[in-house]
């Protein structure tokens, strides 16, 4: 007798009606689900991951007698748009099989009435985002709402777990498992280096989920563009290659052109339109554009009305907007996993190869593209190590739990530790977090009477009043956006000398830019935005007022945010290996191998495991160039700390620059001579103890550290988020987290929130962990090369000068320079 089909007849018929057969991994997930086990599905794009994730739920719901009581399946996606898209895709089989299953989404766009109804009468399947899940879990009816939950489907899990959102989601998963012990979870993921990390995340710290792997489909066809024109020695524009990129767009159906930053997106979009003699429909898509404009582009893609879209990470994740047959990556991919993800956007059928073209913008980036290409062919990944759960996120979660049913401290501590990022959380830290949420957790106990959490008679911690709950609901989530300014068209009229001119607004809003970017501009600066060259006029309230620049104006792009994705450690090691192996260079473009040979002749090649430091004079100043290959963020921290030390060594440092590969700083003192006579010791200069007192001193005033603290203070619920329209109303003086940081640091340096901020700094904007690892690695292995002039590698770092010069942060020096600009008029 033949084994009975694992699928109900309706499903069998539906599959065969499409000429499909159910795939082995889909059946495997069905079996795992029937056994009540959580499972991680690792599969390449196009393997039918989503259907595999939902199939067990659909079968179970189809086979039930009568209605399921309450919510059956919860789906979580990192993007609202993806949740909506999946809901639509899921409607098709449900409709075609006429299954009595209700499917709904719950996002920020869902109306209040529908939200209330969803709590009272939940659908069978609900699709939502981590933030909305946090709100549901903190709802006072969370326990009955989730009591019958059977399945959780987590999409794009590899992308979710790498940030604080992943910490929050892990805590909410732990909560769901406590509310619904019968629930099992399935995680859908692209290929990752360590599936075991995700299995632990999904199943819980002590009970890792099972694993189902689908072997990768056809190998992608990836090329590195070999341009007619020579590859520039520095720069990030890829302008030299635009004609060839344009040709590639012409010969394909739909091309996605990925870039790393918004500014690059703007630049590439404009460059392509300058070449667009055929008037091809080429569009732009990035996070600062007006949402409506983005929706239009997405719709046009889906309808096949576009030929190419220039985009940033906003299109990285798995939404199918159209039939993409070529992916172009402008600039270096910065990480192998990101590249694999982007390439997967092309050709969503597993058995056909994706096609991709890498376009390096300078010679270093060519080496990086090479390294990434090899990594992709070996399917090697550089996913970061699993996170250690952030304490500010835990604080938010603790408040959330207190807002729903309340908690017993011992039980919540045990529950939290089942979330893998928090497996090693100490009881001391947990208690400190609870105290922080309740009364601020200060050594000085003066806020007891204002406590936000109080223990009831049964010992349960609960929110003290309705306002606390309201505050929590307004501030949920872990994404703290940089302050954004609207970009509005307007005009400036000249004012009297010494008085600002009048700026008139009234034009339309083109999108948003980061406040710090607007701050780097002065009136008259031109930049590219929303595909046009704009002239910056000034900031009025919370808007950056700009006018259209006269036709033919060259944009001046004063800021390049290349640091958004620092070079991954994994790719860095591969780039170093290429540099150290001249036998491989014959495969490189001629100008690149000539550049490396020149470096070998004039200076030396940095060998793996050592740090090459060059010193040379130039234009009356003295330079030091080092090549750690640790990414821009770590180099920036290194530069800040080195300039402090050079100051103490009386070398009179003036500034430094860095890129992903190296850093250069310059001084008035002759470093080559000082090293020669023993007055400056490189081993001491680069010794690990710079991460001690020097770092502490610098963090006291570092703007980056203050930004990090601000984000922890918002996520942890110390201060409230500011919402658009709320800020800068008249002359209202808002409380500044910088003031809070100063006071807290001085009076309670071990406070839990400072601990959270320091932990962030180790991996975030300051990348201290990576810098520390580098300093350990090169200790005693610094090779000094004195030179008469700059080396070929050095040029490519030095050319960053003027593009993104970063100076030491000594405020007084900057103020003194401003003071020196005092004119005679003003003195009068």
């Amino acid at each position, binding site marked *: 007798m033949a084994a009975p089909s694992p699928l109900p007849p309706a499903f069998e018929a539906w599959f065969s009606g499409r000429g499909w057969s159910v795939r082995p991994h889909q059946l495997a997930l069905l079996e795992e689900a029937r056994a009540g086990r959580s499972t991680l599905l690792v599969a390449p794009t196009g393997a039918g991951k989503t259907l595999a994730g939902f199939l067990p739920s659909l079968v179970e719901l189809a086979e039930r007698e009568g209605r399921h009581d309450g919510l059956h399946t919860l789906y979580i996606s990192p993007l609202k748009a993806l949740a909506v898209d999946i809901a639509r895709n899921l409607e098709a089989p449900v409709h075609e099989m006429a299954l009595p299953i209700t499917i709904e989404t719950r996002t920020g766009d869902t109306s209040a009435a529908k939200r209330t109804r969803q709590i009272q009468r939940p659908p069978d399947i609900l699709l939502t985002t981590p933030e909305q899940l946090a709100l549901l879990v903190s709802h006072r009816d969370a326990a009955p709402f989730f009591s019958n939950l059977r399945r959780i489907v987590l999409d794009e899990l590899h992308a979710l777990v790498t940030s604080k959102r992943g910490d929050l989601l892990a805590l909410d998963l732990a909560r769901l498992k406590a509310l619904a012990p019968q629930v099992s979870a399935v995680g859908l993921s692209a290929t990752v280096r360590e599936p075991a990390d995700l299995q632990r995340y999904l199943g819980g710290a002590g009970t890792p989920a099972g694993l189902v792997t689908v072997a990768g489909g056809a190998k992608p066809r990836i090329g590195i563009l070999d341009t007619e024109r020579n590859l520039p020695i520095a720069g990030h524009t890829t302008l030299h290659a635009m004609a060839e990129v344009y040709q590639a767009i012409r010969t394909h159906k739909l091309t996605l052109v990925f870039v790393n930053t918004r500014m690059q997106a703007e630049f590439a979009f404009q460059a392509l339109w300058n070449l667009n003699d055929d008037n091809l429909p080429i569009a732009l898509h990035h996070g600062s554009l007006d949402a409506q404009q983005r929706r239009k582009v997405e719709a046009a893609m889906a309808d096949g009305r576009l030929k190419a879209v220039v985009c940033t990470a906003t299109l990285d994740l798995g939404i199918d907007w159209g039939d993409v047959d070529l992916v172009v990556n402008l600039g270096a991919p910065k990480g192998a996993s990101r590249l694999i993800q982007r390439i997967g956007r092309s050709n969503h059928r597993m058995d056909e190869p994706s096609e991709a073209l890498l376009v390096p913008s300078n010679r270093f980036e060519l080496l990086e593209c090479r390294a990434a290409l090899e990594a992709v062919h070996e399917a090697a990944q550089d996913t970061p190590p699993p996170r250690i759960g952030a304490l500010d996120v835990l604080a938010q979660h603790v408040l959330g739990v207190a807002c729903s049913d309340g908690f017993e401290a011992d039980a919540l501590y045990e529950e939290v530790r089942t979330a893998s990022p928090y497996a090693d959380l100490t009881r001391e830290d947990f208690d400190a977090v609870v105290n922080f949420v309740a009364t*601020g957790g200060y050594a000085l106990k003066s*806020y007891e009477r204002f406590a936000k959490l109080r223990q009831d008679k049964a010992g349960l911690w609960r929110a003290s009043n309705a306002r606390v709950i309201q505050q929590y609901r307004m501030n949920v989530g872990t994404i703290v956006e940089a302050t954004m300014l609207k970009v509005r068209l307007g005009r400036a009229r000249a004012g009297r000398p010494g008085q600002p001119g009048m700026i008139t607004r009234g034009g339309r809003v083109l999108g948003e830019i980061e406040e710090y970017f607007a701050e780097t501009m002065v009136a008259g600066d031109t930049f590219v935005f929303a595909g046009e060259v704009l002239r910056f006029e000034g900031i009025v309230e919370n808007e950056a007022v700009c006018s259209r620049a006269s036709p033919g104006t060259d944009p001046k792009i004063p800021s390049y945010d290349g640091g958004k994705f620092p070079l991954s450690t994994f790719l860095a090691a591969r780039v170093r290996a290429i540099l150290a192996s001249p036998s491989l260079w014959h495969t490189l473009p001629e100008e690149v191998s000539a550049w490396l040979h020149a470096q070998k002749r004039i200076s030396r090649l940095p060998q793996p495991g050592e740090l090459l430091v060059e010193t040379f004079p130039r234009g009356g100043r003295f330079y030091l160039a080092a090549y750690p290959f640790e990414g821009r963020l770590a180099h920036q921290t290194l530069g800040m700390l080195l300039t402090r030390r050079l100051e103490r060594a009386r070398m009179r440092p003036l500034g430094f620059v860095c890129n992903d590969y190296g850093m250069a700083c310059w001084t008035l003192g002759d470093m080559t001579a000082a090293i020669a006579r023993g007055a400056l010791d490189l081993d001491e200069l680069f010794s690990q103890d710079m991460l001690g007192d020097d770092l502490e001193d610098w963090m006291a005033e570092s703007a980056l550290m203050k930004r990090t603290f601000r984000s922890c203070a918002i996520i942890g619920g110390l201060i409230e988020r500011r919402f658009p329209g709320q800020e*800068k109303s008249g*002359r209202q003086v808002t409380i500044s987290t910088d003031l809070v940081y100063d006071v807290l640091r001085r009076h309670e340096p071990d406070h839990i929130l400072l601990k959270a901020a320091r932990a962030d700094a180790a991996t975030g904007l300051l990348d201290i962990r990576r810098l520390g690892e580098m300093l350990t690695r090169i200790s005693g292995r610094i090779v000094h090369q004195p030179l008469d002039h700059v080396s070929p590698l050095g040029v490519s770092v030095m050319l960053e000068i003027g593009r993104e*010069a970063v100076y030491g942060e000594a*405020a*007084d020096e*900057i*103020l003194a320079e401003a003071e020196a600009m005092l004119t005679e008029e003003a003195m009068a």
Partner: protein
Amino acid sequence: MTVAAAMLAKRPGATNEAFMLGRLALVPDLSGALWLPEERTLVVADLHLEKGSAYAARGVMLPPYDSTATLVALGHAIRRHQPARVIALGDSFHDRDAENRLAPETRATLSLMQQGRDWLWITGNHDPAISRAMGGESAAEIVLAGVALRHEPAASESEYEIAGHLHPAAKVRMRGRAIRRRCFAMSARRCVMPAMGAYAGGLNLRDAAFRPLFREGLSAHLLGDGRLFRIDPRLLLPD
């Protein structure tokens, strides 16, 4: 010699000396206080004591050390100048209930500072009445050598005044980096002092509120880490 003056002596090119407001000599202090040497008087503005606990009462648990931090800064200024009189230029207490929330130790520190010298609380919009329990005297304003000292600037064109209330701060950008600091805003008639309170924050000098006060000119003296800096107002940026 004051710390600021000592700093000036060491740094040629520094612009901060004593300023004359009518007949009254003023020496701005790095702490944000103003030293009147001839009157042996130290003036401080906008201490906003217990602002932290005022937020805590609304569920925003700011670190409860702001009153201590503010009084430490004030204590340093007092030790430097040994004034015979201290004048607090209004908004010394963040709200009417602040006096009651002051920790006993903080109250004791304040008493200690008041010993052996005159102490005058000028009233402000946040603290329109100050109880006797806080020591010293209180008044709506006082005139010294023809200069009125009051909380809110009166914007009169015909008198000299020293005021607080506005919390002046200034922002300047150099070499791609913006720096925002508290500052003294001065003209030939008027000095608006920076707020000394640890959580007091600052209002940008480019704000319209300053315009009617400085029609005849403005000089901005920013509080640096080691000294004061006089910055050309045309270099000042809005927030």
